[in-house]
């Protein structure tokens, strides 16, 4: 029997397993190897509140605002992980949220004040200040909010290095889809399509799959699969250091160390079921890329070489971390919005719970207790 069974091998599951194995625990990861957000995401390290999210889920803004210090801490956590297991091509040059009119500037100003109150390093820039750090912006941009805590990394590099670290630590990886969980008096068991897995404790890091697993244990977690679209261009000279977003429209744009420009920002892909990869919609490639070309006109001459679609997970905006009410051996670890950024931090908090020190006081609002009937 293993000490800990981790369900889900995305960024949260992988880092959880690594942290546990480092303390000597015998860990097995069981992953369905389907639609992991961690293998499809864009590697933006988000800190400032994303306008897309604020617009889509206005009722969740309070949750995100309360989480702001965690985003700052999460990026720092990535820095530590990068030192230990990197390089993940991590760059922390800050993120720009662009405004095209006075109304958007006013929105950014209000947002900035809220963020500053939570300890985020933010500043409002006018066009001449922008010209000094981002001369490639379109002429219609009048200013931006700069968030110095933001950055970017290459998730392909991070996933690969972390996977190698996990192998070195002797973590076992199994491919299976878990159908249901059983919580026994002295252990926990997961029943999968291929087999049964028993362990002393369990971490559920199954993202969009979390809700279905905990339902039978009496807690309804509203995790939802959200298929999202991405685009990537051929390589060009490195020029864009910042993570670029917009005050009103859905976009993230940045340049990888390979010189490629990655364009995303939450455009929809077409759902074909949780265990099928989502399909790319024409409206998303056209809309997303056209918007990028308006904001950064000098990319118009280069070419998009691929798009893809991956599965994001949303619940109520905030992370879900800690023991499941009534099942102390089952620890939840599902990150809130911008889950790749939060991943390592969420993993660390979940590990505390597995090891018995309980959920950190400042993270108590993330407890799954909020979903218990």
């Amino acid at each position, binding site marked *: 029997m293993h000490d800990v069974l981790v369900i889900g091998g995305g960024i949260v599951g992988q880092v959880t397993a690594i942290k546990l194995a480092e303390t000597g625990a015998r860990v097995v990861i069981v992953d369905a*190897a389907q639609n992991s957000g961690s*293998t499809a995401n864009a590697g933006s390290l988000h800190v400032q509140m994303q306008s897309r999210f604020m617009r889509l889920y206005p009722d969740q803004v309070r949750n995100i605002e309360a989480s702001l210090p965690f985003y700052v801490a999460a990026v720092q956590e990535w820095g530590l992980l990068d030192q230990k297991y990197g390089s993940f091509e991590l760059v922390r040059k800050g993120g720009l949220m662009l405004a095209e009119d006075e109304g958007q500037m006013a929105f950014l100003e209000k947002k900035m004040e809220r963020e500053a109150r939570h300890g985020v390093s933010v500043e409002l820039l006018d066009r001449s200040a922008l010209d000094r750090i981002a001369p*490639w912006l379109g002429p219609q941009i009048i200013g931006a909010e700069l968030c110095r805590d933001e950055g970017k990394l290459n998730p*392909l590099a991070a*996933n*690969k290095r972390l*996977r*190698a670290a996990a*192998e070195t630590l002797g973590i076992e990886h199994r*491919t299976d889809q878990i159908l249901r969980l059983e919580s026994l008096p002295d252990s926990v068991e997961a029943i999968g399509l291929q087999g049964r897995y028993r362990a002393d404790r369990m971490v559920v890091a199954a993202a969009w799959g979390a809700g279905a697993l905990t339902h039978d244990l009496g807690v309804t977690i509203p995790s939802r699969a959200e298929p999202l679209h991405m685009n990537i*261009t*051929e*390589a*060009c*000279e*490195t*020029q*864009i250091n910042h993570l670029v977003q917009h005050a009103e429209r859905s976009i993230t744009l940045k340049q990888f160390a*390979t*010189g490629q420009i990655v364009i995303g920002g939450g455009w929809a892909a077409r759902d074909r079921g949780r265990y099928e*990869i989502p*399909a*790319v*919609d*024409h409206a998303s*490639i*056209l*809309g997303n*890329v*056209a918007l*990028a*070309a308006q904001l950064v*006109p*000098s*990319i*118009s*001459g*280069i*070419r*998009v*070489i*691929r*798009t*893809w679609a991956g599965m994001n997970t949303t619940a109520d905006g905030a992370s879900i971390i800690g023991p499941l009410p009534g099942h102390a051996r089952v620890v939840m670890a599902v990150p809130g919005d911008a889950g790749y950024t939060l991943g390592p931090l969420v993993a660390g908090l979940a590990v505390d719970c597995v090891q018995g020190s309980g959920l950190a006081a400042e993270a108590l609002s993330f407890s799954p207790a909020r979903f218990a009937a």
Partner: protein
Amino acid sequence: MQMPDPSFTFDGTPIPIKPGASVAAALTDQGHRAFRQSANGNARGIFCGMGVCQDCLVTIDGVPNRRACMSAARDGAKVETQVAFPSLKGAVVAPPPEAARILEPDVAIIGGGAGGLAAAIAARRAGASVVVLDERKVPGGQYYKQSTGLPPIDRQQQEGAELFREALDSGAEIIGSVEVWGAFDGPLFIADLEGRALVVRPRTAIIATGAYERPTVAPGWTLPGVMTTGAAQTLWRSYRTLPGRRIAVCGSGPLNAQVALELADGGAEVSVVAEAAAAPWHHPLAGLRATLLDPGLVRKGLGMLQGLRRHGIPMAYNTRLHRIEEADGALRMVLRDQRGNETSSIVDAICMNIGFEPQNEILRLLGADMAYDKTFGHLRCSRDEGMQTSIPCLYAVGDCTGLGGAPAARLEGEIAGKTAAAQLGCGDAYDLFAQKRSLKRHRLFQKALWQMYDVAPYSLSNMPSETIICRCEEITLGQITEGLSAATGHVGTLKRATRVGMGRCQGRYCGPISTRLVAAATDKPVDDRSHFAPRVPIKPVSIASILAAQEALNESA
């Protein structure tokens, strides 16, 4: 400096332009082989000659990453070696002022080769409105290889010119220089016409996108001067340009001998044609069967061998490419026969072809069912008798469905054209008996023919680990092997771990190889799902062109 007329400059040097020449042909004519620098600093040039490999990139008038093989040479243009990381400070590319076009024909045909043109004629004659889209300036496809401005070189090209004329006369609208980069359910196609957007929403679609060539991977296969046999043939047939003075050909299949002969007739010194299979007289049964089924084509084949003998060009059977090295501005090709004996020759250009890969991206994107054909090592698209795929109103003909040859493609086109039109209430598709019978015969002929060659996937186990497998990302066999042990399961996982298949050609050369390596490592059979996921854009598309398409669709909404 005296500029010849007409001409363009390449890194400042004047390059004369022959009538109808592509940038690649004009450069080759002047002895230039290296067109671009890779990220690792290696020189690259023409490889596929048909817009697939993305290795012939140059900067034209400040716009980076233009395919020299697909770009017409224009008088006064400024062409430069493509650097790996072009500056973003270059000119902003605005979509051309002409408005985007939105077409809604009864039948849209993607690909204007033998299959597509035959389908167009049949559907149009039945009364359907037809639009044919083709990537090349002049349609005709890989078999008929048409040229602009030059008279037909032989009967094959003449026949293509006639078919093209017949298609035009039928009243089908045929648009060249169109790159279809998007295929979505509906179907909805989005294309680029020299920077302009083209949006096509047909009632039915016939996909006739053909195949591209499978290379013989070996150390040195990415060097400038090494190209597919078809690329060399296009240079000669479409542009009357020889890929070099001294040439060697390797791989397997009838195209190699044919092109060797064409190039020799054109004045090239062909040192050898290396054929992986045994000589044809070692396959007497298959030869007999082929002769009975199509005596004409077999006679043509024998004529080719005689022609090679006349030129003194040896056919080296049971012989494969072992490696290619640079040798004083030329290439040393090392061949190895079945017994391990090595021979080498110094040449200017090396042509390679060892089978074909179907261009089935559109079919896979739209979800048409596929099955893996072990003998040819590629996917075959499942179709009914009328050439309809598993997706209603989506037809497929010719080599994009799996290798079948030009005569079969033409017959399939006729059948699909008629059937698709009938499905829309234009004519009936009753009298297809003759076509179906000939098609059956052609398929049997193809089967017998390929038994005399060796185009099944070959083993890489004896290849040095530093051999490049992924041309675009410069990923070696060693890196892939290492990736296989770390990233198990699916070729998509291998891709994310090693970057194999992530480049501009989107895994067209390394994908089939990687898929088979993953299948072997996981002990699973190859099927449709074991390949890279089909994703748009089908070919890289400029952001300006996407912008143009977005504006067009916004206005029409």
